[in-house]
Every structure is written in C-alpha cells, then in structure tokens.
C-alpha cells in the first residue's frame, strides 16, 4: 500500500475551514521588529511568556526574608541561589494567604488561584477556581494569539503526597475545580507534547485527522444535550482539548531549531530521583519552546506539598516533608534549611536557563517572561500561611520593576500580586479569584486591587 500526497491547497483549505486566523510557531526574527525594537513590524507586541513555579513545604522565614527592603535588598541565606538573577527577582513577604479553610498544605493553591478550595473532605480538596497560569493562557488566547500549545505542565519529582486526596496536591495547574492539568514528569513526553506533533505540510493525514475531529465534535455536541450540568462541563473541556489538538495540526512546523529528544523518561524509581537533571532538561525544553513560540505558558511542580520526595542530593535519607515535622533538630542541624536552599537552587537554574537564551526579538527570554513563584505554606512545621512569601521574576517586557525589589507587606493580600501578574497579559482584568466570602468567613481571598509596587 502506498500513500499519495495531498496538495498543499487541501492543507490550506483545512486551515481556512477553521475560520480563525492562526498565529503559528514561526521564529521571531529581528527583521520582524519595528524600527525601535519595541514591537513586531506588524504592530503586534513582543511575545510575553508566563511561568508558575512551585515547591511544597514552605521556608524558614528567619532565614528566607531579606533583612532590608527596596531595590538593593540583601539576599537572605535561602535566597542566595538567586544571586545570578537577583535583579530579575522581586521578593514579596509578609502577605497573608486569605484561604478560608485550612487543611494543611492544600491552602497553598489559593496563592495561585485567589480562591478557597472546594470539595473539602478530610485531607482532600479541589482548588476553588483556575490557577493563574490558565488565566494567563486564556488572556493570551483572547488577545488573538494562538500558539500550537496553549500551555504546558511539567513536574520534576514524582513522589507526590500519597496521604492526600482530591486534585489540589497533585496538580499545580487547573482550569477549574474539577479540571486538573496533570504535570508531565517525563522530559521525553514534554518534548513530544511541544515538538513531536507537527505534521509535514504535504502529509495528507492532516486534513483527514481534522475531519475525524469534526465528527468527534459533532458527536460530543449531541451527547451533551442529554446530560446534566457537571457532565456538560466535562464535555466542554473535552471539546477544548479537541480544539487544542486542531491548533497543533494546523500549525506550521516551527522553522527554528527544535531541540533533540532529551532521552530521559524520569521513570518512577525506588531510590534517588534525578531532580537536578530533570529540572534542567525541562528548563531547556521550555526555553526552546518559548524561543520558537510553540507555547507561552508553563507551570513547574518541582516537589509537591507533603510529598514523599527524599532530597538525596543534600545527603538526607528521609522525606523533606517529614524533616519539616521531625523536631527542632532537623531545623537546627540544617536538613530543612538545606532542602529549601536546594529547591531554591533548582528554581534559580530554571530562571537562569531562560536568561541565558537569546530571545529572537531581542534581549533574553527572561526579559520577556513573568514568573510567579510560591510554596504551599510559609513554614512547613506549623503549616502557617501567614506571611507566605512569593517571588515575581522576569522583566515582563518592561512591565515589572528592574532591578527587582523586596517588599515587606504588613499583612497584604497575595491575590493583589496575582492580579498584577494577570493584568500584564490582560490590562482590562479588574479582578482575580473568589470575590464573595464563603460561609463563616468575612473576607474573600480574591482581589480587585492590583499590587503596584512591583510594576515598573
């Protein structure tokens, strides 16, 4: 059997049939910029990217919070790993996570959603709304930009909590309470998601696959009519997935140099996980994807809250989470501190990888990225979410202050920071998160007032 090739016109017909204008993964060449380099020649703004980054079990505030505020803040012991990119980092301390229900560890998600969790039952919960990365991804899409991959979710340590139920503790990204976007732990699979699906222009399977997806959409629409609200929403998510696949199929293969397959699956292991290596591979892949404009939004779950992760690289043999609960000796002899510094170093590695990559539109990728970082609590041993630190990194194309600052808040609302980040991608956004207090609460965790101190 031999397969004929289909005419390019047929491919274009398939693209055009979908209606929308498609922005695809073309390289951003300098020639595409306008004369003063502030926008693309066509008037479109220079692409801005978003990254959320997380590790669980908190910090030791007395070794994390910088000793002074403002632009020339001194790096604390636990911030020391950020030294090479310090100017790109604004550190915000002293804000109180306003989550209305405390389960331990779960409430960290409120920093990323601005909403209290739902479906709470024992050690189970789902987030109360979409996470910031998905709000940003929707904002980018609403601005008319369609990248082949709307957003990508990456995970580093597979040893997530096995005592917690629900979706909160195992997924940093959510589109809604019942729609987690699970992290992908295999660099090979991340490569495949980002670079593996482009079909050559002359491959006839493209339009045929599109016609299959059309039929699937019609079937899904018919099924939806017979269902209730919950299942309708689930099928809407299914349709969203079909739409995203269509965009991938429609996308022209990127002209920029795609990276080779990493050759690392990061499989589940009985023993040390390759945390440093996998974090670096994920950073490399994301840098390529940002450079090629394959995607503009990503999240990274380094180590989960209450996770089973053992940070063997620092010479410990027990879970980092357990160390935060295992007596003052763990704190004093440095196990907890060393674990936090180790994880901060991974965060720094990730940011440095973006900084070390030239953005085709000028500068480096971190110049045109906003990264939002936090944990699931301020300090692990109490699970306190009072004074929970956050870091907003990157220049955001000039949106954020550079050099960054340390701002010590007297109990501000972390969702104000979230709103500031969202407004970088959707200037018309007026709020984020849950604005109406839940039962037995007088203060909702959402925000309508952006935090301006970190804005340029």
């Amino acid at each position, binding site marked *: 059997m031999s397969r004929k090739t289909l005419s390019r016109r047929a491919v274009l017909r398939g693209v055009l049939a979908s209606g929308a204008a498609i922005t695809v993964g073309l390289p951003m060449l300098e020639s595409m910029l306008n004369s003063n380099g502030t926008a693309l020649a066509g008037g479109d703004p220079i692409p801005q990217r978003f990254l959320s980054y997380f590790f669980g079990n908190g910090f030791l505030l007395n070794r994390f919070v910088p000793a002074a505020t403002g632009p020339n803040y001194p790096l604390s012991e636990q911030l020391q790993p950020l030294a090479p990119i310090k100017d790109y980092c604004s550190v915000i301390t002293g804000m109180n996570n306003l989550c209305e229900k405390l389960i331990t560890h779960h409430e960290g998600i409120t920093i990323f959603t601005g909403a209290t969790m739902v479906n709470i039952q024992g050690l189970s919960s789902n987030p109360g709304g979409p996470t910031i990365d998905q709000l940003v991804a929707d904002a980018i899409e609403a601005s008319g930009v369609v990248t082949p991959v709307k957003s990508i979710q990456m995970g580093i340590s597979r040893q997530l909590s*096995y005592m917690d139920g629900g979706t909160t503790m195992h997924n940093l990204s959510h589109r809604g309470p019942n729609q987690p976007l*699970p992290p992908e732990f295999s660099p090979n699979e991340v490569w495949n998601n980002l670079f593996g699906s482009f079909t050559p222009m002359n491959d006839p399977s493209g339009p045929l696959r599109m016609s*299959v997806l059309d039929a699937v959409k019609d079937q899904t629409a018919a099924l939806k009519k017979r269902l209730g609200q919950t299942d309708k929403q689930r099928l809407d998510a299914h349709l969203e*997935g079909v739409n*995203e696949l269509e965009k991938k199929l429609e996308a022209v293969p990127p002209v920029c140099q795609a990276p080779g397959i990493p050759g690392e699956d990061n499989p589940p292991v009985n023993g040390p996980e390759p945390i440093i290596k996998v974090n670096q591979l994920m950073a490399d892949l994301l840098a390529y994807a940002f450079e090629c404009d394959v995607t503009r939004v990503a999240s990274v779950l380094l180590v989960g809250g209450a996770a089973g992760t053992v940070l063997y690289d620092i010479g410990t043999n*027990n879970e980092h989470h357990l160390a935060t609960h295992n007596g003052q000796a763990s704190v004093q002899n440095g196990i907890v501190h060393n674990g936090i510094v180790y994880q901060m170093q991974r965060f720094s590695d990730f940011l440095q990888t973006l900084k070390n990559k030239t953005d085709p539109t000028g500068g480096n990728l971190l110049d045109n990225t906003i990264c939002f970082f936090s944990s699931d609590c301020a300090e692990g041993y109490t699970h306190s979410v009072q004074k929970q630190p956050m870091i907003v990194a990157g220049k955001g194309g000039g949106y954020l202050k550079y050099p960054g600052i340390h701002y010590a808040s007297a109990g501000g609302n972390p969702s104000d920071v979230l709103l500031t980040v969202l407004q970088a991608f959707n200037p018309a956004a007026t709020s984020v998160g849950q604005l109406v207090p839940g039962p037995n609460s007088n203060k909702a965790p959402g925000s309508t007032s952006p935090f301006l101190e970190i804005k340029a």
Partner: protein
Amino acid sequence: MRNTFLATAIFTALIGSVFTSACSGDIGKLPFDTGGAGGAGAGGPGGNGTGGDPIDNPQFSPAPGGIRKLLARQYVNSIRVILGETAANSASPPEDSTLNEFETLAAAELALPPTAVEAYETSARDVASAVIFDPPSLQKIVPCTPTGPDDANCYKQVIEGVGHQLWRRPLTEEEVTPIIAIGVAAGTEYGNFNFGVEYALSTLLQSPYFIYTVEIGTQDPDHPDWFKLTGPELATRLSLFLNDSTPDKDLLTLAEGGGLETEDQLRTVARDLLKRPDARAALNSFYDVLFKLRDLPNTTKDAAVFPAWSSAVGQSSRLETLMFLEDLVWNQNADYRTFYNANYTFVDTTMANFYGVTPPSGSGFTKVTLPAEQKRTGLFGHAGYLARYSHAAQTSITRRGAFIANMILCSEIPPPPPGVNTTLPDFDPSKPMTKKETLIQVHYSDDQCKGCHSKMDPYAFPLEVYDGSGKYRTKDENGLSLDPTGEVADFGAFASVSEMGQLMHDDPRAMNCIVSNLFKQSMGHKEIKGERPAILSIQNAFEASGFKLQEAMVEIVASPAFSYVNLPK
C-alpha cells in the same frame, strides 16, 4: 450480627451531629455523601430501611446518571475483546487519575485535560493502523468485499458492525453517515479501501461514545424521577465493574433482548462474569489502587536503615497481598473477615527470605504460617501495607493508623486543626521515649489533637513491632522495648497485633466499609442518602452469605442502586 453501627449512624445523621467536622462524635462520619443530589427520600427518624426490597422502600432514591470515562485498562481490554490482541497492544490511552483514592471517582467527576484528548487521538490512530495492517484483525471487522476505495455501502457495514460493539449500542443512521464520508474520503485519498476503514475506525475510537460510558436510562413509569438503565447500559456497567471490560457480543445480545431485567437475571449473569479470569484481574486492580500496592516497587526506603528493602521486595510484597486475596476471595470463596485475622500468608522466595522462613521450592507463591513470635495477623502483618504507610527511614504510627481508620473502617478523619505546631519533639537520650510514648505525650496532651489521633494512632501501636520496611523487630531504632497495647473507643482494647486483628474481624464497620468501597468502585460515586436502603440490603446479604466477597459484588449488581439512575449529573 445486625448492621447496628449503620442504624446508629443514620440516627446520628438525623439529629445533626454528623455535620460537625471534628472527631467529637463517637462513631466518625457517616459513610454517605449527605450533600449529594438524589436524596429526595430522606425519610423519617430511625429509618428502618433494612427490611424488604429496597426498591419498594419509600426512602430509596437512586444516584444521578451521566457519563463516566473508561479507565485505561477498561479501554485497552475493550479493544482486545472487539479488535483483538494486536490492536490492544497498540492502544495507549492516557493514564488514569485518582480522586479520593478511587480511579472510578476521578473517571466520573474530573474533566479530561487536552493532553488526554491528544493521547486518545494518538491511540486511536495507532490501533486503527494496527488493525488494517493485520489481516486477521481486519477480516474480523470487514464483512463485505469492497468494490473500490469509495464503496460507501461496505464502509456502512463495517461502521455499523464494529461501531455497535465499540459504542455498546447500535448506531443511528445520523451517526453512521458522517463516518462513512470519512471512510470514503480517506479511501479515495489513498486509493485503498483499507485506509478508509482506518479513518472510520479511528473516528469510532475517538468518539465520546467509546471513551465514556453513558448511563442515562429510560424513565420508569412507576417512579417518574427514576430512570432504568437500558439493557446495554446495564450490561456495560456490570462488565466494567466485574471484568474491567466491555460487554462481549453474547452479553450485549442478551441485554438487548431484555435478558437483564430481573434481579435474579442480574445475579446469574454476575456469577457467570465472576467466573472469568478477568474478574480476578479487575479485583486485583481495585486493591492495587485502593491500598496503593502498585506504588510498592517504587517506594523509597533508606538502604542504611532498611537494608532488607528493595524494589524486588516491594513487588513481591505487593503480590503477597494480592495472592492472599486471590486465595481468599476466589480459590476458597471464604469469609472475607479472615483478611484481618488470618494466621497465614503467601510468600515467594523473596518474601520468604524477608520474613525469615524457608523459601518455597519453585518460583511461585506458597501458603505459609509465619513464625508465631512475629505475630503477623492478616493484612496487618503484610510487609507491603506496613512499608507503604511508613516513611523512608522510619515507621509512621499516624499513617498506618489513618489507613485503617479511613480505608478499612471508612471513618473519615478530618485534617489537623489550623495553626497547630505539628513538629514532634526530638529524641532525647536522657529521657528516651518510643514513638508511641512521644505521640501519646504530644497528641493526647492537647484535646484538639486527641479527638482525632485517638481514633487512628492506637490501631498502629501494636504494629510498631514491624519497622518501616515491614520487618519484625523486638526493639525500636533506639533500642527501646515496644509496648503493643492500644485502645480505641467503640473498637476495643488490644494487647497485640493479633488481638487488634481479631477485633477488626469482629467489627461490622470493617465489613460495611468493604461494601462501601466496592460500591464506589462499581459506579463511580460516593454513596448518597437515597441509596441507604439499597446499601443496607447489600450489607445484609453479604453478611448472610458468610461474608463472601463475591456475593457482595453480586448483590451490588442486583441492587436497584445499580439498575436505576436519577437525572444525569
């Protein structure tokens, strides 16, 4: 033995104390989702729903219908049944999530991420391609000789035939027509009928009608709020539950012909399906997920502290528990309570060496009685459970105890209260204390902590004779003697693992709990109030059978809670 616990629990629910989240009540939380839909028949005080057919009980009301995603193994098994082994080997559905310990709850409640939709497309294309390049598989689904690559009539026969099995119901003409068009377009494009089959098959496999099982039913004339599942819907529900697979042709034909109408018909079919080898595999998967046995080969242990632990021990300890259950449930079809007080287990060479008994000749597992001084008793002596619910370098009384409270007794333990310093004091050589003594000092000195910890920690006090890898020891890591005594209110006092296991054997909550867990597994929802009479009926039948787990599964299938649904969720 009556279901006195449950009756009490229902009464407690009605007087309201169940709505508090603290561990202040005497019996823990009622194992029903009191907030769920479909609780129309809440009924009067005391609710004696134990007598008679639950369907005639005015308090009975089924749970909402809707759609549930096939689990990954159900997807692959369905393809194996319908398209053959070659096709099944090419299938690569997205991984399942779990929600509150159950894959079936996630499959009924969570939306799919875009990566899953893409995985379904990839899998469908691979399966379809495997079929057309494998003549025997292709022959199975092409009943006609095509006149050419655009033979619409032959495509129609293919789609109607294999579609009927894949979608577990006949396709309407409206549904078939667009798929014929895809077949014709692809066949024409490539100049080959088989490529048309490939794309038509890929469409059927990517369809929500294959990926999700649809449970909507038809309105019941006697109860307008209820909908009786159609024959094929019911056949699918029971095949997925009992065999992790799609109904085969015979069962689908039986169901379409009205052969799944009465409770006795359902019992007969269920018993037949339970005789199939895939029923054992399905139950193994249930335990693999619920008890986290599948994690064991990749459970990290500090090699310096637990030198006996390895990935191989993890895998063999997983199989030990599964072999034990396979023997109890299938080979012996014996009293399920034995799971908690057995004085025997199953070992292969790896586990024999681990437990310090003579290895069996041959490579498989053999039934053995372990040395009496180790006091291993049923599940509570299995290294897999003991190791999974421990830390990497030490035991965890709280995790082992929480597992028993939550998964064996179905009493939900709320999270720690906010703002509590959860740090345990360091080991002080001048005042040496065992972990049990430390926990009692910390958890019991504070009423906030004691309320819940006294309902989970003590179960694991006697289990301290097993280290964090499940190995027997007489002294703890600091050389201190271990005190195996414990007491839990409403459960009893015990002075050893075997006494604790015996109390578990005798506790009706443990038997109600396994019914509850199977119920969730079978239908993908947490029990709701309206289902109480049906569940009580299943529990009573389970008891009457002498606690034969197969009978619990049969009675779930025969229950009106299984045959009827409310409006779709």
